[in-house]
């Protein structure tokens, strides 16, 4: 039972980082980014190449790919999202689907379909925590995801840029009236999302391997983002963790009843339930439309 909880928390913390990517963009720009999974891939492949081909130490490689991810997110916003301002929300959603196809195709052309083992970033073996053996990767995944969340919560609370981003999230018109550059906030949001994606991707690849299908895991992080509330940073953390734990519990209790496979679908059942009962998630802001 405890093993299940621990591995659930570890997988969940990766889901939270992936969910954070959705939230960061949605919070300020109200765009639901279907390409988040492929942004994760970009960061993963970059750090992989930097470590194995360029021989850089892992932390430096991760740092560089985070910066590169940030730049990429920024550029995507400028080139593709900027012309779509004012278009229906759904057109923008569909645009990000197209974007994810493009990114994946380019990655495939450059790196090919070959899955490769990710160079070990963490010492092998396990750490003993609360009487449980936890693999090092899991331990560091939990620690870094907590770190990332603390940083972002502080950023939104304390820094002036963070506060102006929250202002844009609350009301774009008023924010621009008081002199906040909405376009810069938009671009920054995309940059941050891609940066966070690189972190999540590196952990995911360390547990599995570097391959072009890793973006499918971002799909399984959707429910986390929805459950927590699409525009709540803290919600993404709790939502992601909850999904990780629920999946493992479903594996234990539901699988024997249905003959297996419940892990894959339980998150979506939870998401549908959340959408029907509390559409804006546990901590999300309700959208009210006035005539």
């Amino acid at each position, binding site marked *: 039972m405890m093993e299940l909880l621990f591995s659930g928390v570890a997988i969940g913390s990766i889901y939270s980082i992936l969910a954070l990517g959705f939230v960061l963009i949605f919070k300020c720009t109200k765009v*639901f980014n279907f390409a988040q999974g492929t942004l994760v891939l970009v960061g993963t492949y970059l750090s992989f190449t930097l470590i194995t081909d360029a021989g850089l130490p892992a932390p430096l490689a991760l740092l560089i790919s985070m910066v590169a991810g940030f730049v990429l997110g920024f550029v995507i916003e400028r080139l*593709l999202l900027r*012309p*779509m301002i004012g*278009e*229906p*929300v*759904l*057109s923008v*959603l*569909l*645009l990000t*689907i*197209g*974007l*994810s*196809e*493009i*990114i*994946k*195709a*380019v990655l*495939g*052309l450059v790196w*090919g379909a070959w899955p490769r083992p990710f160079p070990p970033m963490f010492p092998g073996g396990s750490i003993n925590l609360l009487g449980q053996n936890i693999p090092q990767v899991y331990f560091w995944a939990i620690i870094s995801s907590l770190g990332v969340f603390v940083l972002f919560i502080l950023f939104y609370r304390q820094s002036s840029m963070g506060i102006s981003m929250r202002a844009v999230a609350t009301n774009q018109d008023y924010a621009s009236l008081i002199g906040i550059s909405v376009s810069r906030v938009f671009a920054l949001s995309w940059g941050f999302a891609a940066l966070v994606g690189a972190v999540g991707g590196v952990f995911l690849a360390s547990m599995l391997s570097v391959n072009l299908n890793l973006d499918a895991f971002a*799909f399984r992080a*959707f*429910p986390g983002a*929805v459950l927590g509330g*699409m525009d709540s940073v803290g919600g993404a953390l709790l939502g992601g963790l909850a999904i990780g734990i629920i999946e493992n519990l479903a594996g234990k209790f539901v699988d024997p009843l*249905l*003959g297996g*496979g419940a892990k*894959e*679908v339980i998150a*979506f*059942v939870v*998401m*549908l339930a959340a*959408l*029907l009962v509390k*559409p804006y998630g546990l901590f999300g802001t309700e959208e009210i*439309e006035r*005539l």
Partner: protein
Amino acid sequence: MRSGYFKVDYRRDRELFPLFIERLVLAVAVVAAIILPLITDRYLLHLTNLTMIAIVGAIGLNLLMGYTGQVSLGHAAFLAIGGYTTAIVAGYLPQLPFPVVILIAGAVTSVTGLLAAVPAFRLKGLYLALSTLAFYYIVMFIILKAEPLTGGAMGRHIPELNFFGLELDGEYAFYPVGLAIVVLGLVLAKNLLRTKTGRAWKAIRDWDLAAEAMGVNLRMYKTLSFTTGAFYAGVAGSLYAYYIGFISPQDFTFTVSVNYIAMVIVGGMGTLAGTVAGAAFITMLPNWINQLAGYLQSLWPAFQASTAVPYLERLFFGLAIVLFLIFEPEGLFGLWKSLRNYLVMWPFRY
């Protein structure tokens, strides 16, 4: 002297094909449809058949997405339900004529469309899209688990098209069947859109609150849109099952949903003629890219066609979605409209 093509009275508005050039294109299309099986080989006819199946499914998605403004990321689930209903019904009652089976598949799928519409009572836009995504995964899970009926992951064989004892098999036999259903589907949709229902859908798409204020019953018309869209998808899934002869969950991946969305966008949201073009474009794209790559390789031997082709295909696919959304939101139909207006007004620019 007129300065463009405008519908200035209701008679004009009711006409299906008001312009000479449109009637011309229609005539060409009819002739092409008749002589096509005579001049193509089996492979191109096979692609044409797949295109026709895609057209039927894409009409359904366009009614939902282009005309009512409700995005569905779960279209593949409707196709799957149609396909599996066909497999089950035709499997247990092989003597049933196929039009009946197809209608049953469509009807069953529209009932599940009713279920998918329930979240639409409360949700809209993005959140509704996410609920259809969840719907998709849950339906596929149920299909996987309902093994005695669906064959689970092992899939199911479908008997050949049975028309009162006459068995139809192969590309040439399927073509007239598919063509008849496509024409029927287009005519039905076109006429449905000219009724009160069609106008209500467009009103919901343009602004749901305003539509409600004008007395459009949102629940009823959204549900109607979901069931109609699901009906078309069910028919498409049924045709697919008959045509391929074997289905398994692998036939209805999420990529299938994305492909249908791309068909609607590339063709033009909210246009039926565009849907036909979009379905053809997306279905034929792999073939074109393949030939393009073969050509590139003959020019430039270092080019690794076999490994690059699929990525090039996805690249064009993504680019088509992105470029059309940014520059021509009306899709191929928008391009045609510009061309049509240019031809109608020629030699003047406006």
